[in-house]
């Protein structure tokens, strides 16, 4: 069993967490000038990096989203931080 660090709750069992999305997707604005292709890219396109990855995860137990840095080959956890603008 692996343990992931929630910035709010500390180390918890991996089964308490849910992967949401790769970090770094910013919503294209303004909506009326966003093309279908840009919107599809925002919704769906990923890097799926091999190695270091920054991802948004949800800690199901406390309901908070946060950023988890991981190595996608070794599965090592490299760190976790709150989302920008979120304070503990």
């Amino acid at each position: 069993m692996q343990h992931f660090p929630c910035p709010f709750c500390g180390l918890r069992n991996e089964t308490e967490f849910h992967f949401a999305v790769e970090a770094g997707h910013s919503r294209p604005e303004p909506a009326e000038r966003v093309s279908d292709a840009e919107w599809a890219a925002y919704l769906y396109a990923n890097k799926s990096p091999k190695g270091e990855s920054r991802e948004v995860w949800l800690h199901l137990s406390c309901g908070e989203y946060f950023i988890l840095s991981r190595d996608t080959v070794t599965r090592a956890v490299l760190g976790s931080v709150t989302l920008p603008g979120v304070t503990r």
Partner: protein
Amino acid sequence: MKRYSALSLFREGLRAHRGWQPAWTKARPKPAYDAVVVGGGGHGLATAYYLARIHGINRVAVLEKGWIGGGNTGRNTTVCRSNYFYPESVALYDLALRLYEGLSRELNYNIMLSQRGMLIAAHTPAQMEICNRIANAMQLNNVDGKLMGPEEAAARVPLINTGPDARYKLMGGIWQGRAGTARHDAVAWAYARAASALGVDIIEGCEVAGIDVQNGAVAGVETTFGPIRTERLGLAAAGATPGLTAHVGVDLPIHDYALQAFVSEPVKPCLDTVLLYLGTGTYVSQSDKGELVFGGGLDRVPTHGQRGNLPVQEAVTAGLLEMFPAFGQLRLLRQWAGVVDVVPDSSPLIGPVGPSGLHINCGWGTGGFKAIPAGGWLLSHLMAKGEHHEISRPFDLDRFARGRLIDEAAGSGIAH
């Protein structure tokens, strides 16, 4: 290529098997090819075979970074089926199943296709309604599928848990009689042998490090064996595909996850169908050697490592024992994982991307093995003609911008 036959087997048996030849030639890369396929799994090898066989393009190379059939082709649970919901999906997967049905004969290689039937088992009236809906859809799409009642279903899987403590009662489900299993390694080896005989170069240990683009068109690939020129490039690299399209600045709607599989010690014949239990999400069949081959859902942690995590091992194994308490006496022989490329609508990506001359065939997620002949058929069509086959058209990457997703997670309950 020497043909395999009962007579050749008999003759070789009499002379200590000294007359067999290597099934395919291990090639070194030439400077240029008419077409290059990246990925020496079933899909890539099938692509090369059909390029040569159907389209007459024989100067073809298959570049494989490891050994052929060593990725997901050698890591799956060998199930072939076409029990999907949407017409586009049934057309795609049934093309694969129909090609599988003739493959041993066409390739002169026994892929050990065993159409033992598959039951998707339901446990509630609501699940039975959904099963009925899928069975109706299959019949409308001219594929053999039917709703099976509780008695007939129980007779198909005699060891199923019917005790008073059973968490999920078997209420019946969807039956596809043409579904079954095939020898996964044999599929890769059969296509490799047939492709090699038609002049295809199969190059193992050759990793692609870059894609050369000139004037908006593919000009070649950079490999660990040096540059190779080609104007037709096909990617059939499953979980490694996003790393390849990154060379031309294309991001794909793919997340890579590990999918685990398990094999028990061999026992006498006790299960002669493929069974997927909706309650536990575990599926199982028995191999010709007697091993129980089983698996379940994805590890929900994005990864490129070919290893599984413990929570999923526990859930899948517990699911098997809930279905078949008698299997609790068995020991687990092996467990492994493959990296599967999962798309949000659980349907593959087939079509052109980036510079002209570049085509992909990926995003099969947990279901790539069953689709191998169709994946090869359609990618070879794209590479040879530069345009879609009518069956691959709906699976183009443009469906995301057009909002025309083919959501088989919603349609037929694919587990991802």
